[in-house]
């Protein structure tokens, strides 16, 4: 089976696209300006396809990073992948932006001897979208596995840091943080590790691999395609990891107050 997979990653500040072929070669293109996802998405997808030396008719799958991350960005990538899959009659693949960040940090984890990889995406007000993977060095190639107690979800940064400190103090493993949550919460993380006397177990990913990018997402997409984990276009859905504010209020029963106030001007 031949694979030519188009992958779009629009959940962070910059959007990027990649084409991965079945020999694992990845051809990337990315936007040079911040938050221009909608404007640039097709242009960079086209560029990645051309770099791969194929045409869009040669694509076998289309994958999108489905979140978490910028709600707007997620929607642009997922809509583009769904519609491209629908039009070309090819299956879709959904990729977790967090797993993609962990994948992108794997080489650095291995090089620096980190056991835990913790991608954190800034969700404002001490909140973060995160998950923690454990790096494994036992086989010929590097792997990582998501830790059950620290699955992908929304965490307060303090809560996540405490969980990581507890795990790492037990086995002495080092923790590599990655993702744009570093830019927001670096001080909080550093203080917590210092207070636990574990500064030497704390690492932050370099800026070159810290942000969402289509290249590691493409490697994950190839694995998904090879394993047959594909979706029809209507099944590819965003992973916002959070309800809209209005839905939260409806659930909490605080919505009616807001509406009544709005009604009074």
């Amino acid at each position, binding site marked *: 089976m031949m694979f030519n997979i188009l992958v779009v990653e629009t959940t962070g500040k910059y959007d990027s696209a990649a084409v991965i072929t079945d020999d694992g070669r990845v051809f990337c293109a990315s936007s040079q300006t911040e938050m*221009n996802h*909608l*404007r*640039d*998405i*097709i*242009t960079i*997808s*086209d560029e990645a396809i051309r770099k791969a030396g194929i045409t*869009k008719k040669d694509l076998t799958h289309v994958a999108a990073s489905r979140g978490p991350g910028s*709600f*707007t960005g997620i*929607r*642009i990538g*997922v*809509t*583009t992948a*769904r*519609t*491209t899959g*629908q*039009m*070309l009659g090819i299956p879709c693949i959904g990729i977790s932006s967090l797993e993609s960040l962990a994948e992108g940090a794997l080489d650095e984890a291995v090089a620096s001897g980190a056991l835990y990889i913790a991608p954190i995406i800034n969700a404002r007000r001490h909140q973060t979208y995160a998950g923690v993977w454990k790096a494994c060095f036992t086989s010929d190639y590097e792997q990582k596995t998501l830790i059950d107690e620290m699955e992908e979800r929304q965490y307060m940064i303090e809560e996540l840091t405490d969980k990581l400190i507890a795990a790492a103090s037990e086995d002495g493993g080092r923790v590599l943080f990655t993702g744009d949550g570093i830019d927001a919460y670096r001080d909080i993380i550093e203080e917590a590790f210092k207070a636990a006397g574990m500064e030497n177990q704390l690492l932050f990913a370099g800026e070159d691999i810290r942000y969402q990018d289509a290249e590691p997402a493409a490697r994950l997409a190839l694995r998904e395609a090879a394993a047959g984990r594909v979706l029809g*276009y*209507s099944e590819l*859905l*965003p992973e*916002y990891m959070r309800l*809209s*504010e*209005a*839905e939260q209020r*409806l659930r909490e029963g605080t*919505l009616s107050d807001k*509406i009544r106030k*709005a*009604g*009074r*001007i």
Partner: protein
Amino acid sequence: MKDGKHLTLGIETSCDETAVSVVADGREILSNIISTQIDIHTQFGGVVPEIASRRHLENINGCIDRALSEAGVSIDEIDLVGVTYGPGLVGALLIGVAAAKSIAFACDIPLVGVNHMHGHIAANYLEHHDLEPPFMSLVVSGGHTNIVNVPDYNRCEKIGGTRDDAAGEAFDKVARVIGLGYPGGPKVDKAAREGDRDAIAFKRVWLEPGSYDFSFSGLKTQALNYLNTERQAGREINVNDVAASFQEAVVEVIAEKAVCAAEEFGQKRIVMAGGVASNTRLRELISQKAAARGIDVLRPSPILCTDNGAMIASAAYYAYRAGERSGYDLDAVPALEF
């Protein structure tokens, strides 16, 4: 192309309607799929942008499929993709634009971005197959109140607009306060039919002489103050009378200004567009005033007054014929001007 006809796929997602349509030669509707979210937003008392965006994403591809299958065409037979790129809610617009660009790219079909307001006017080409510019247009919807001179298919010259609230917004607000709920326009319209439009003397805001602009915020405040005063005095409020009197104050000014504009610009026709164009009393009043001055009034049927993909397809078709094309860098422009 199918049977010698040029086919346009029109996509509209600027607010709370996910809509896709196939139109032949800019005039003939082959399919018109409208997936409304009104039930979802009703529980929140109005459109919640984040929820609208999420629903558009879930709905859009199914709507595209249905539009093609109901029209009995395949995507290979589509000659043009038209899409609303503004004005509207940015998160809602971008779903349509992302989908339209993906179709254009994947299938090598030309793309034209359409101004939502031009689309509302173009809805009339679908209803009245002989209608051609020039004419005067009155575009009244939830977010817009405009008088527009239309000298040809691809020019829309705004000669008057609202300085504060749109007519639809004023309806929504008053409807909410008198307990009619959302969406306000149709509910005020219905209640007003049972009420006395002279019961309460709400002011008519004409602004300075010769102006085709509108202002409804003062009227809205007057209505809210009236309701407060009555409630404080312990008097019972007749909802139907408030609706009828308030509606009259809004539509009388709109109708009069539209007719004056047509007269001044020498237009023999007024073409109504937008959701509020379905308002019963506005239609009645503008027809009376126009008839007295020898002016015809045209309007689309209610289904074409709401947001729909067919009107976008029609507007895209005429823009395309005039040589307009959008690139793959087409972006959503939430505050797009007329």
